[in-house]
Structures are given as structure tokens and as C-alpha cells.
């Protein structure tokens, strides 16, 4: 049967992988191409790159990184960050991305999701949703790296994105992100139950049990994590063995 996926996430700025809490105190984790190869060797099922470059001068760097990774790593690559128009999707796919993740621009211009999906296929369009809890069982969509409230309900928004042609949802809990306390399982469960398309749980992983919980309790189709892998706490292989020991189907 289909395996649950483990997806290491690489936040990239100025050509380096970094990790911080809410974009402050960024800690250097190394060279993106080397890190990508390491995770591939460890059995990562996919890789996600988020370009968090602030300066437009540096925006070309991500293309060179993706080109280099795509020459050496033969698993699916997702790239997000700063995707504003269909041409951005095209440029990333041409650089070697297999999927492109759209976040803020999907809120600003939902038609972008529809246009990109109809042009390149739903299989390559991931809509990233940053969610904050507003009441028990209620979450709101935030944009601009979690700084800007939109008034949109996360579940309604996710369903709309599915209808417009998103192939997958990358769901990040802003409340949990960087806290290492585990995913927001209620959020993950609510969204995955509401959708036909796969949901990637993100935000908050601090140990391997959190990954297993995301699948077993949250119902996620894939789990994404960054810092637990970047700084050598755990390998992707260890994460898979931990999940397999709990009866979760993984690719070992």
C-alpha cells in the first residue's frame, strides 16, 4: 500500500539553509545541495525548499540551487516562496522543481492556483496554508509568513483550493511552528477529513513520536520537519523506523 511520506524542509536564504523561530535568530544549517543529498541518502521521500530570501537581488540563487539538486537527487522536489504568477511556477519547474508551493499569492489572487493547475497539472501545485487557532476547532488563514490575518477559515479555504485545482495542501500551524511540541493534531485532522487531496502536516515537530502522531492521530498523508533533521538529532531513516514500529506504512 501507499507509504506515508517524510519530507525534510529546507528554508533557504542567501544560498544557505537556515532555521529559526518565527524567522528570528536564524541559525545556519549548511549548504542546501549537500543537505539535500544527505537526506536523499537517508531515504527522504521528497524534499521541500522554501525560499525565504528577503531581497529580490538574491532571488536567482534558489534557481541555481534547485538545478544542482535536480542533477543529483531523483526524488520529488517542491519549491515555494515568492511565487506570484504563472511565470514563476514555470521558471521553478524549468529549474527542476516537480511541485511548486503557493502561499500568500493564493490568498491575494486565488485564480493563480486555477491558472497554474490548468497549465501544469494539479500534481505540481501545492497550496501552503499557515493556520492560527482562533477558537476551539476554529483556525484562521494567515499570510506573509504568519504576520497578516486574512479572516479566512482554514477548512473552507482548503476546500476552495482543492476545488480550484490544488493537488496537495501543506498545512502549517503557526501556533506550533518552532515550538517542538508536536503538530496541531486537531487542525491536521479537521483539514484532512474535509479534503479528498493529500495533506502534509507541518509545524512543531520536536521528536520522532510527533511524526507518528501526525499520521496516526492527525490523519496526515505526509509529515514535514526541518530542525530535527538539520542539526543531526535524528536521521530520516530513524524517523521511518520509529513510524514503522508503530505499524505505519513507510518506504524503508
Amino acid at each position, binding site marked *: *500500500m*501507499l*507509504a*506515508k*511520506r517524510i519530507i525534510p524542509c529546507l528554508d533557504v536564504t542567501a544560498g544557505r539553509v537556515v532555521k529559526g523561530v518565527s524567522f528570528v535568530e536564524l541559525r545556519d544549517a549548511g549548504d542546501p545541495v549537500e543537505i539535500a543529498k544527505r537526506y*536523499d541518502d537517508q531515504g527522504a*521521500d521528497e524534499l521541500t525548499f522554501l525560499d525565504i530570501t528577503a531581497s529580490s537581488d538574491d532571488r536567482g540563487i534558489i534557481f541555481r540551487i534547485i538545478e544542482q539538486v*535536480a*542533477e543529483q537527487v*531523483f*526524488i*520529488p522536489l517542491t519549491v515555494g516562496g515568492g511565487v506570484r504568477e504563472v511565470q514563476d511556477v514555470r521558471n521553478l*519547474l*524549468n*529549474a*527542476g*522543481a*516537480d511541485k511548486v508551493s503557493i502561499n500568500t499569492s493564493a490568498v491575494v489572487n486565488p485564480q493563480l492556483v486555477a491558472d497554474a493547475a*490548468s*497549465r*501544469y*497539472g*494539479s*500534481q*505540481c501545485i501545492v497550496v501552503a496554508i499557515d493556520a492560527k487557532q482562533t477558537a476551539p476547532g476554529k483556525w484562521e488563514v494567515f499570510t506573509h509568513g504568519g504576520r497578516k490575518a486574512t479572516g479566512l477559515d482554514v477548512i473552507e479555504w482548503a476546500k476552495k483550493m482543492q476545488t480550484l485545482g490544488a*493537488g*496537495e495542501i501543506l498545512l502549517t500551524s503557526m501556533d506550533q511552528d518552532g515550538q517542538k511540541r508536536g503538530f496541531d493534531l486537531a487542525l491536521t485532522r479537521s483539514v*484532512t*477529513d474535509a*479534503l*479528498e*487531496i*493529500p*495533506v502534509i502536516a507541518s509545524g512543531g515537530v520536536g521528536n520522532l513520536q510527533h511524526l507518528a502522531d501526525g499520521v496516526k492521530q492527525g*490523519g496526515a*498523508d*505526509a509529515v514535514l520537519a526541518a530542525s530535527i533533521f538539520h542539526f543531526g538529532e535524528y536521521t530520516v531513516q530513524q524517523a521511518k523506523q520509529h513510524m514503522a514500529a508503530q505499524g505505519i506504512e513507510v*518506504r524503508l
Partner: protein
Amino acid sequence: MVDVAIVDYGMGNLRSVHQAVRKVAPDATVCVTDDAKIIADAKRVVFPGQGAMRDCMREMDARGLRQAVIDAAHNKPFLGICIGLQMLFEHSSEGDIPGLGVLPGGVVRFASGLTDEQGGKLKVPHMGWNRVHHAQHVLWNGIEQDARFYFVHSYYVQPSDVALVQATSDYPKPFVCAVAKDNLFAVQFHPEKSAAAGLQLLRNFVNWNPV
């Protein structure tokens, strides 16, 4: 004359396929092309596809590539990938359109509301790494039984001739994920994105000399 022509009809991204073929055949000339003459002259042809089959058929025809693809599927080592597999059949329920009719059978969608053995919801598209139960064929050489390959699709093929079937996968019921006939081999998954097992299949293809 090129060794491997990858058919480009403007649908989706062929860079991954190109990179992977170059990786397993470093000495071969490999080109991504929308030129019917180059496809006709190539020793081998890879026929990928992404997106909706209706769009793929339209774009292929807009470039005048239909006959070159049909000819290659009949007369030289030919590898269809994903929608490139589905387009070989007679008909697709995706948009209720005819395919190329190289192989007998149709293309249908996964039902909605599928569940696994534990009652977990099975999403469509079928996306991720699934086990492939394969038959005997040289393109499976060096690939373990039940090896995992990367899939992303909502439709699958139903050949009307079971002799074509070279592999199945389960979601949750078995579905056909590879077919072969003479010089033709075609797969639903993405070998170019399936790590070592996928590269091995591509390696087997570029070394394949069907009689």
C-alpha cells in the same frame, strides 16, 4: 541521430526525465524534442506526460506529433510515463476522449471515498511511494519484487488484454501500473523520481534491445 528522444509537447516539466536518463546513460545523446523528424530517427523514445489527458492530446496534435509517437510505439524501444502511458489506450473517462489507440482498453478514475484496511481515508490523487508487484520482463532486472516507486495520478489504465500487464499496485484494490507489448513498455509511476529503483528501470530501458 539521437540515442534517446524525449517527446516534448509543452505539457509540464521534462527536465527531471532528461536528467535521469542522462544519469543512467552518460555516453548517450539524449534530447528533449518536439520535432517529429528527430523522434522518427531516434533509436529510443521516451513519452512522458503530465496534467490532464485532454490537454496532452491537444498539445501533441498541435505540434503534429501524433503519427511520430504512434510509429515509435510500434517500431523502436518506447517508454511511456504517467499520462504517456494513459494516452496509448483507446479511451479515457477523463473528459471522455479518445486516446492514441496503440493498446486496447481504457483509462478510469479512482473512486472517491476509498479507505484502507484500518478505515483510513485514501486520497485522490494517489500520491507518493507505493509497492509495485511486477511480472518477468527485462525492464524489471535488478529491481526487487514489491519495490516502491513514486506515483501521482487520479486515473489508471484498464487494458482489455491481460497479457499486456507487467505490474500492478494496490490502492486499495490492485490496479495496473505497467504494461508491455513487443518494443513498448509503459508505466504509471515516475521512474525519474523514484530514486534507485526508478533509475534502474531507466537503465534497463536504455540498454533494452527488444527482438
